[in-house]
């Protein structure tokens, strides 16, 4: 049986969960979804459309999120349900709680899988290594294996024809000893960066925060998400939520359009798997052109508005 720790926002399942479901279906038809949190019950019926069993845990110790308590809860469910594989989303939160779970279960941990495949008594995955320059295949054989699934690498699952069963689980959890003093949520009215088919990104070469208007204008015409490099975020020009790269988000859109981005390895590790890469840079020697499918060598201050105008004509 495959156990999936769902990501949800209290009203619906997140895309990462639907991606984990399709990865799980390729391994074993017997799937259980675990839903944690005070609003977990709200998503149970939706989850039951996809899998045979849904376990709801609304224990107050699960709010606010603490990796330590989450891994404790997931361990209890894994052992009770005798799951052979536990899948967790390869998000920041998932990648801090999954290794904790693996230590608790003394199980192998396979991290950030882009491909999953069952083998005799175990699991084989592919993931990226060496700042995403290398694709590495790993395997483990054990009674239970913990894996995280990289977002945006699996198709979203479709619902089943019949609904699964919903159960409530009572667990014995230790309260969190971490005090959350504050949270700054960075929201955008545009399509979420990791879910966008097209992403338009600006780098240090944008020159100023005001100039990002040019990036936003093009993104709005294309219905795209807006991204930024670490340099632009560190300069305080853009919110962290828009950061693409090693310490930000990993995106894999159909088209990744970037302006004023030099192409540092740390940035490439977050967008290098995009289907098409498009670069606008005034320096013909910029490393970004080496990985670009299309590029314009020129001043982004005039190229970006020209692209926005051309895209507008196309859409009209």
């Amino acid at each position: 049986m495959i156990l999936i720790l769902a990501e949800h926002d209290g009203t619906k399942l997140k895309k990462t969960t639907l991606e984990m479901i399709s990865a799980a279906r390729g391994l074993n038809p017997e799937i259980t979804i675990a839903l944690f949190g005070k609003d977990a019950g709200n998503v149970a019926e939706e989850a039951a459309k996809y899998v045979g069993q849904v376990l709801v845990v609304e224990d107050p110790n699960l709010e606010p999120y603490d990796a330590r308590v989450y891994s404790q809860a997931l361990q209890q469910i894994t052992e009770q349900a005798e799951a052979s594989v536990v899948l967790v989303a390869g998000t920041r939160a998932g990648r801090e709680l999954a290794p904790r779970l693996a230590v608790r279960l003394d199980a192998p941990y396979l991290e950030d899988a882009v491909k999953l495949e069952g083998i005799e008594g175990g699991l084989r995955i592919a993931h990226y290594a060496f700042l995403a320059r290398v694709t590495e295949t790993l395997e483990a054989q054990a009674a239970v294996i913990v894996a995280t699934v990289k977002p945006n690498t699996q198709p979203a699952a479709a619902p089943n024809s019949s609904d699964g069963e919903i159960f409530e689980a009572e667990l014995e959890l230790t309260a969190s000893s971490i005090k959350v003093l504050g949270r700054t949520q960075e929201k955008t009215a545009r399509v979420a960066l990791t879910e966008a088919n097209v992403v338009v990104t600006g780098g240090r070469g944008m020159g100023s925060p005001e100039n990002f208007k040019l990036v936003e204008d093009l993104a709005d015409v294309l219905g795209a998400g807006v991204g930024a490099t670490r340099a632009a975020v560190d300069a305080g020009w853009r919110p962290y939520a828009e950061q693409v790269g090693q310490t930000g988000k990993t995106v894999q859109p159909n088209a990744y359009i970037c302006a004023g981005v030099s192409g540092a390895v740390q940035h490439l590790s977050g967008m290098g798997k995009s289907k098409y890469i498009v670069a606008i840079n005034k320096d013909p020697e910029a490393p970004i052109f080496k990985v670009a499918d299309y590029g314009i060598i020129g001043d982004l201050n005039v190229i970006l508005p020209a692209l926005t105008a051309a895209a507008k004509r196309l859409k009209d």
Partner: protein
Amino acid sequence: MKILCLIRQVPDAEARVKAQNGRVDLEGATLALDGMDEYGVEQALRINTDGANTVAVALGGARFEDAIRRALAMGLERAIHVESTEYLDVVTQANILAKIVNDEQPDIVFCGGQHADTDSQALGAALAEALGWNQITWTTALGIKNSSVEATHDVDDGKEQLELQLPAVITTQQGLNEPRYPTLPNIMKAKKKEIRKASLSDYGITGGKVRVVNQEIQAKQRLNKLIDGKDPAAAAEELIKLLHNEAKVI
């Protein structure tokens, strides 16, 4: 306060990584102290400014000694090097490191937020669990008051401020501080600092839980069609047409 810094020696971000016969070949690649770990070393030296009670801990091959010397030259007091060239999964690493932590009894363990060789973010959290400690991942600001720590760290949809009691494992990243360059006198001094060597068998470890089956470079062939932007309107028109008609992505 006693501080342990976990460090790794990894290919430099700009290094050319090759793969041969299903294995990465680091021959000729520039190797360096992992940049993410370096922030932890720097932070340790900002807390214990004289370097006293700061220990570098490395788990890896003989080549890791360069990274260890670098950390000592930055100012850490001494080092422990568990020598192993074997691929060790993160749970096995955490079990070994937990034994060292239990011997050393530090208040804080620093660890890089993501390692530039395995691309793994797991070690800090795995070690924290093996110790029964809390962790703070992706830390960008840190303040210590007596035995409690207040930190700002990155989460999936923004930032979070936390307060917790030490001991804790704290994972570090860019933004936390600006790591120092070792001075020449400190590089000389570092040559005399203690590096205690240990082996996997000292910790009762015979092997890991995960096998590497294959490593390969899968560089996507890119079209590299570059347009001269001297006539911005014409260049833009051409690019939009290519994206629409050829790539079919807009």
